[in-house]
């Protein structure tokens, strides 16, 4: 039978399959008796979740319909084994976060992947060059978090200077009534604050601290036009002129361990460092040692080199305030992030532009 002939084989039909040309008129009555098979449909795109999608579970929100989510933790196989499975290798998209890097090796093992979505700010955990080489699109976490992160930076700084958490502990242990007044803190107003990285978050931090009477200056890769804060071209020079340092930059090769022993010593015995960027920007081992020795005044930290592990020595210090990488964990930000993830998935697989494409800087 010629491929495009109007002869149609209906199983169990009363028409003999011996080649009676079917005209529309003779076809119609048959159509009323048996429904045509569905046209072949594209199966739902397969999305590999490298980690549990906690942004959705924090809000009790289901994962979106229309996708098939591959969940390694539900497999009896260890992650490595799972990644070799046919299931994983059919993945067309990867959803990842800071703790699950997407490197060249992973991309090699998942040849069908065309899209990577990151739920975390920054992209040092994604091999962007390899993605570009393979023609893989990358979507980021957008810019919804600046206010929340800046709020926490200020919260950590005031807490360290005014010993808020330490004195709250003091009260709850009943020591105010038995031991008397708590130790004096240090005034926030008048502090010379150096902001490392004056992006959106850095600017929000600066705006807030100005209202408290702080003198703000900054270091950034390039001087920012339209910004009146004094600029320092290197972090060490910035620090010698400040008594507070707030780390607001991203992590990359240049910023890794940028805050080293020399910089921390320049901050000094009365100096305070706040980190809401990434743990490895600071040489953590050096910082801990200086804090313990009293060579550094205090620290407010939301990020660490090996989360969720925090150096033991910090746990006993009253001049540090510790936070479990919580800067963006508010309902507004998490909800926006879920919307963005869903929006990016839907856009990509309907051939529309990504909502938050990640551009290599």
């Amino acid at each position: 039978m010629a491929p495009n002939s109007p002869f149609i084989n209906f199983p169990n039909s009363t028409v003999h399959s011996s080649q009676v040309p079917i005209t529309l008129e003779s076809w119609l009555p048959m159509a009323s008796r048996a429904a045509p098979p569905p046209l072949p449909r594209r199966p739902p795109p397969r999305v590999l979740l490298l980690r549990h999608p906690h942004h959705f579970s924090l809000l009790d929100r289901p994962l979106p319909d229309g996708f098939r989510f591959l969940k390694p933790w539900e497999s009896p196989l260890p992650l490595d084994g799972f990644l070799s499975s046919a299931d994983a290798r059919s993945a067309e998209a990867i959803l990842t976060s800071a703790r699950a890097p997407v490197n060249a090796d992973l991309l090699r093992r998942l040849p069908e992947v065309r899209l990577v979505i990151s739920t975390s700010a920054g992209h040092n955990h994604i091999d962007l060059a390899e993605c570009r080489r393979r023609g893989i699109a990358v979507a980021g976490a957008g810019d919804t978090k600046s206010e929340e992160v800046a709020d926490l930076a200020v919260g950590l700084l005031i807490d360290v200077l005014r010993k808020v958490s330490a004195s709250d502990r003091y009260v709850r242990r009943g020591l105010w009534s038995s031991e008397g007044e708590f130790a004096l803190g240090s005034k926030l107003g008048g502090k010379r604050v150096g902001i490392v990285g004056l992006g959106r978050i850095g600017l929000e931090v600066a705006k807030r601290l100005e209202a408290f009477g702080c003198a703000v200056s900054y270091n950034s890769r390039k001087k920012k036009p339209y910004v009146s804060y004094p600029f320092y071209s290197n972090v060490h020079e910035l620090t010698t002129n400040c008594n507070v340092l707030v780390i607001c930059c991203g992590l990359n090769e240049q910023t890794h361990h940028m805050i080293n022993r020399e910089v921390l010593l320049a901050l000094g015995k009365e100096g305070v460092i706040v980190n809401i960027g990434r743990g490895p920007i600071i040489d953590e081992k050096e910082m801990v040692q200086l804090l313990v020795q009293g060579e550094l005044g205090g620290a407010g930290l939301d990020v660490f080199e090996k989360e969720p592990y925090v150096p033991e020595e910090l746990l006993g210090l009253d001049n540090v305030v510790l936070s479990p990488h919580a800067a963006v964990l508010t309902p507004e930000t998490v909800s926006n992030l879920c919307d963005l993830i869903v929006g990016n998935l839907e856009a990509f697989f309907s051939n529309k532009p990504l909502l938050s494409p990640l551009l290599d800087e």
Partner: protein
Amino acid sequence: MHVRPPKNSQSKDFLQMEGIGVLMTCPMFPYLEQELEQRFHLHRLWDFPSRRRFLEAHAGSIRAVVGDTKVGADAELIDALPGLEIVATFSVGLDKIDLGRCGEKGIRVTNTPDVLTDDVADIAIALMLGVLRKVCGCDAFVRSGKWKSGDFGLTAKFSGKSVGIVGLGRIGSAIAKRAEAFGCPISYCSRSEKPHVSYKYYPTAAELARHCRILVVACALTEETRRIVGREVLDALGPEGVLINVGRGAHVDEPELVAALLEGRLGGAGLDVYENEPEAAEELFPMDNVVLLPHVGSDTVETSTAMADLVVANLEAHFAGKPLLTPVI
């Protein structure tokens, strides 16, 4: 306006003041004690087994009292010091001083305004961030090792939340300025509407509480403002609302506040002051939606020093016959 008193004055008057009896009512700040001791004949009330014993020994020689928020100068003390000329409080609050009695007897009173405004406003914001973002709770979470087993969970965003200020004086205005930098819409209540102020005014604390998420008490304690935050205001603030108190414990009906928190009728509270300091509403100790501070509003080295300098400068000015720097009456 910040007053900058001269330090370590070297005038002739300085030397002649050594014999002047100054009574300090309780331990406040070692630097203040030292400065007073250098200039005057300092008596420490707490060195005596009782107030009565002190008065028997020295009542006649006291010409100045230095009090604070814990122990001030009540009518009984004022009446017992026949030579009292001036009360200089190591605070801006005057609720522990019997101003009426001082006025009747022509006794001068000074306090320490302005120098502590920033610190108190900073603590108000610290309490707001502490309650909403659970900064203290997060710190405890990490210290306990719980982060290794799971993430902390969500906390409430602070930026952009509406803030209502009870009392738009120096401290209230400073709080407003800081909260504005976080994008918080500001409203207030006060004895009367302030001209030239762009914030929304409400005539009562209850009305204010109905229209804001975070209510902060920053007014002076007077007969009118005693228990200004009671059941009605707490109900108006509601289960999503947060109360911040950097005024006086007596501004708030504490039993009502505790009940509202324990029953979930109020979202959270950040307190620096309590009805019965240093007792601090023990029932609240296990709660994670409160922050409890031991009256540290102005407790920084910088501000305590500035306050002490102001107390000393006011006393020196008085005994040198010069105008007081920060007189109340």
